[in-house]
């Protein structure tokens, strides 16, 4: 069995598997390319969601403003929330995971490369369908949790809600497929020696999230299907006038919705657990505690959903239960926070941009977590719920937490993915601008919320005491936009002119740093054997052990394992490593599903024409499946010889 020192060099052999140009992207099954497609498309959606936020902020900057009409404003926050949650943060996490997880566990690809391709296409198509609604009679305007019965045809007659259902449904299927892929990849494709207790924490968190996904998403799927039936096929699940139940929708949505917020945050907690040790030059403090607290958060996350419903009138007993369960989550989360602090403690902190973001994450997330605790207290909640205090809470955890964590990950892994370094100086400027403007945007929302400002209002009257807070928020959001643009600029320029990244620019500990930047399509010419939690590190510093005192002596990396251009792999004959072939089958299948989706949206209104479209969709799907089966047979290892 080969050992890990033998890694691929910086000059990767030509990518023999991919088709050239666009075709290469459309037909790819390479987890790295798919990861990049996730990241790019999700980042674009993030910008769009951000623009929607800016429009809202401009409208709210002054009282009695008329920049947006109420209906447009309502579409804006619905699309903003939906976009940021389903089309930005989730897929950004999936993209990082897609790229990094196989590398971290020493695999050559995800377990199901074609399913992976199907996931990305379904995600992109789902996102696009959500946005098609703007041109099909108006975007959904019912809020991202779409409370019944406002979503019924009677109150929301445009097709916006239908597009919302189908769009969410497609990204949901994409997420479930992706999660199954992660579960199997992580459980079953680890390099020899990579036991569960040696897995990097980022991988751990992706695994936990994948399980949360497959448990939580079906519930949302069912709820949205029922809503679709209510709107078009005469059922009455959520129609109180006919015995349906508006509260049932809330239970179903939040049974999904609360676990969803941990789907958003846990991967970024994984990122933090990678970035902090690397730049502290220490192992993570309390590995097992950090891993299991993630599992605990994931589990407890299923027991607290009704804390979004304290004002619904569930009764004191139910409220007390869900409140107490929510408080409990502070415990495992605190364990993570304190272990991160302990990781930094007595380390040798290399304050790179990624490290800045990781530290910013801790700082801001704690603020959001604390406001979460006040919200979790039912009596306090009924004052704060549905006010801007909630908006403040969620942005501290979502932006201060998830987005900052993702930025940390991007600064950390960008060199690996592109072979270029990002501009660190610009990165730090941008970090400070972002941190300050973020707080300027969202801190005042605590105050306006407590001064009685409800959320989701497109205007407010002067004299309520909210003017100043809203003005500050709006100014902050504009500065935030500058920070985001700086980041965009940094990425675009670094792609061309950034310094060339070595294989291991940060002196990392995990396996992704053992291969060239960017890695060859097969990742590892020789699959490494793992002996510890820090496979690469332990090889670089074989003489380092626990008792080593700080500052006593300076440690040098072992020269023999420097991963510079000098050391290259033995030339690999073309075709020697058998990788999955490129194929359009997933794309075709996804397009078929899209046509089917359009058919479903209009089935109730157009009848036959829509049914015909559905039939076409099914036929296209059938074509996709046939070519899928063919290629998977050709690709099977038994067939290859």
């Amino acid at each position: 069995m080969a050992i890990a020192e033998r890694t691929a060099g910086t000059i990767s052999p030509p990518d023999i598997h991919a088709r050239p140009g666009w075709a290469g992207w459309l037909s790819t099954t390479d987890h790295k390319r798919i990861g990049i497609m996730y990241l790019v498309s999700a980042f674009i959606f993030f910008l769009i969601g951000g623009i929607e936020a800016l429009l809202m902020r401009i409208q709210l900057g002054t009282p009695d403003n008329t920049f947006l009409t109420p209906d447009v404003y309502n579409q804006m926050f619905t699309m903003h929330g939906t976009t940021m949650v389903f089309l930005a943060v989730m897929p950004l996490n999936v993209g990082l995971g897609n790229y990094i997880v196989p590398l971290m566990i020493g695999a050559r690809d995800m377990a199901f490369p074609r399913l992976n391709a199907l996931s990305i296409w379904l995600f992109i198509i789902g996102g696009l369908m959500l946005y098609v609604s703007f041109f099909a009679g108006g975007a959904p305007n019912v809020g991202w949790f779409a409370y019944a019965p406002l979503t019924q045809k009677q109150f929301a007659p445009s097709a916006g809600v239908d597009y919302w259902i189908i769009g969410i449904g497609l990204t949901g299927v994409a997420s479930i497929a992706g999660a199954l892929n992660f579960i199997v990849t992580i459980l079953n494709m680890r390099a020899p020696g990579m036991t569960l207790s040696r897995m990097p924490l980022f991988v751990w968190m992706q695994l936990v999230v994948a399980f949360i996904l497959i448990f939580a998403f079906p519930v949302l799927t069912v709820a949205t299907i029922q809503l679709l039936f209510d709107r078009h096929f005469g059922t009455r699940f959520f129609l109180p006038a006919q015995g349906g139940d508006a509260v049932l929708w809330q239970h179903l949505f939040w049974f999904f919705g609360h676990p969803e917020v941990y789907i958003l945050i846990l991967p970024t907690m994984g990122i933090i657990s990678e970035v902090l040790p690397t730049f502290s030059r220490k192992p993570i403090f309390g590995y097992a505690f950090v891993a299991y607290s993630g599992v605990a958060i994931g589990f407890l996350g299923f027991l607290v959903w009704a804390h979004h419903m304290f004002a619904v009138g569930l009764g004191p007993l139910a409220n007390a239960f869900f409140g107490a369960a929510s408080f409990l989550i502070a415990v495992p989360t605190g364990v993570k926070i304190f272990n991160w602090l302990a990781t930094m403690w007595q380390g040798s902190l290399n304050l790179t941009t990624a490290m800045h973001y990781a530290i910013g994450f801790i700082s801001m997330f704690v603020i959001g977590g604390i406001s979460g605790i006040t919200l979790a207290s039912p009596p306090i909640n009924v004052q704060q719920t549905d006010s801007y205090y909630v908006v403040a809470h969620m942005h501290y955890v979502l932006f201060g937490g998830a987005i900052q964590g993702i930025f940390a990950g991007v600064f950390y892994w960008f060199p690996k993915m592109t072979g270029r370094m990002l501009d660190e100086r610009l990165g730090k400027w941008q970090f400070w601008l972002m941190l300050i403007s973020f707080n300027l945007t969202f801190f005042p929302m605590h105050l306006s919320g407590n001064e009685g400002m409800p959320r989701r209002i497109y205007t407010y009257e002067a004299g309520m005491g909210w003017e100043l807070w809203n003005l500050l928020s709006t100014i902050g959001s504009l500065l935030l936009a500058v920070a985001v643009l700086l980041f965009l600029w940094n990425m675009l320029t670094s792609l061309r002119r950034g310094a060339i990244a070595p294989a291991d620019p940060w002196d990392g500990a995990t396996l992704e740093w053992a291969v060239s930047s960017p890695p060859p399509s097969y990742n590892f010419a020789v699959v490494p054997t793992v002996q510890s939690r820090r496979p690469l590190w332990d090889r670089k510093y074989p003489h380092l052990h626990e008792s080593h005192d700080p500052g006593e002596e300076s440690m040098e990396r072992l020269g023999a394992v420097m991963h510079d251009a000098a050391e290259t792999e033995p030339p690999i004959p073309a075709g020697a490593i058998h990788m999955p072939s490129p194929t359009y089958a997933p794309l075709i299948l996804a397009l078929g599903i899209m046509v089917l989706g359009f058919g479903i949206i209009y089935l109730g209104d157009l009848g036959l024409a829509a049914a015909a479209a559905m039939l076409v969709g099914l036929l296209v799907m059938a074509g996709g499946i046939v070519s899928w089966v063919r290629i998977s047979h050709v690709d099977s290892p038994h067939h290859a010889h």
Partner: protein
Amino acid sequence: MRTHPRSLARLVGPVLLIGSFFALAACANTPGNTYDPQGDHARRIYELLIPIWWMALGVFVVVQGLLVYAVWRFRRRPGSAAMPAQVHGNTQVEILWTVAPAIIVLVIAVLTFRTQAANAVMPADAMRVTAVGHQWWFEFQYPELGTEGKPIVTASDMYIPVGRPVTVVLEAKDVIHNFWVPKLAGKTYMIPGKTNYLTFTAEQPGIYRAVCAEFCGEAHALMRFRVIAIDAAEFDRWVAQKRVPPPAPSGTLTVNGLTGDAARGQALFLDARKQCISCHAIEGTNARGAIGPNLTYYGSRQTIAAGILPYSPENLGRWLREAPGLKPGNLMSRVLTPQWIRANLSDQEIADLVAYLDSMKVSVALPPER
């Protein structure tokens, strides 16, 4: 190195300044401030918030303090290639920081449950008011105070006696709304098909701002109301007046140079061709519409159309002329479209309607706005 504490100290000043600015501003006596409770329900919440706030501040200071200290103390000095000790963990401290937060949240939980129990109490002698959420206005019914089984009905102004517990029975006509009087009590949803209850006591006479806090469609932002808490005697006077239907209208009212006649206004209002009665009700007349707000004694309203305009005859005229533009989406404008109004309501007729609606008044001594 030695300069650092100094530069830190220099930071403290501005930080304190900004902090106290925020703190002061947050305590300002603004109309919806939850930190300025005027009712028992809201006060108990506020009193629960204070200790939790201190604990939260403690957690905040500890975590941020450790973080800043660690960054400052352990940052890598230029030129140093030293390797820190490779510490992997320590079970004792893990237990410590598992147990410490657990204790804090336990304390929070106990305090929470006490307040929760207190705020859930529904005294048997509480006065009952049924509040119904409509897109986009609030209706209030006083089933215990009406005559002949007919409750007193109003909209947008909720009169209650000071010092007496009030149990609001919350219902909704169409979609979910959320009843929120920040200074008096926390929110409770109004859900179609479900009845909720909220009990509170106003401690001081006053006019309290209130809103619908749950997104309920296009005009959600313009769905407001007021709670008018007056002392018991005054409240009884109000009730006594509301129990009898308004007398036959008479007199005129001049607004912007146009003189409206109240009696003519009533005739117009009751004229089916003018549509008013298909949606509105006025006691003592045969207007029994149930779609829009009950307009009995409309002349004593504080605001027009769920709080979008302060009540005045001028504004009432504006509402009848330009309702679609003043409150986008409002359901009256489904019928009273701009074209319809141009064709069916002359300025004179509007002046008459205004004179009529304004003529129906009850007299109450109004408390100050709080």
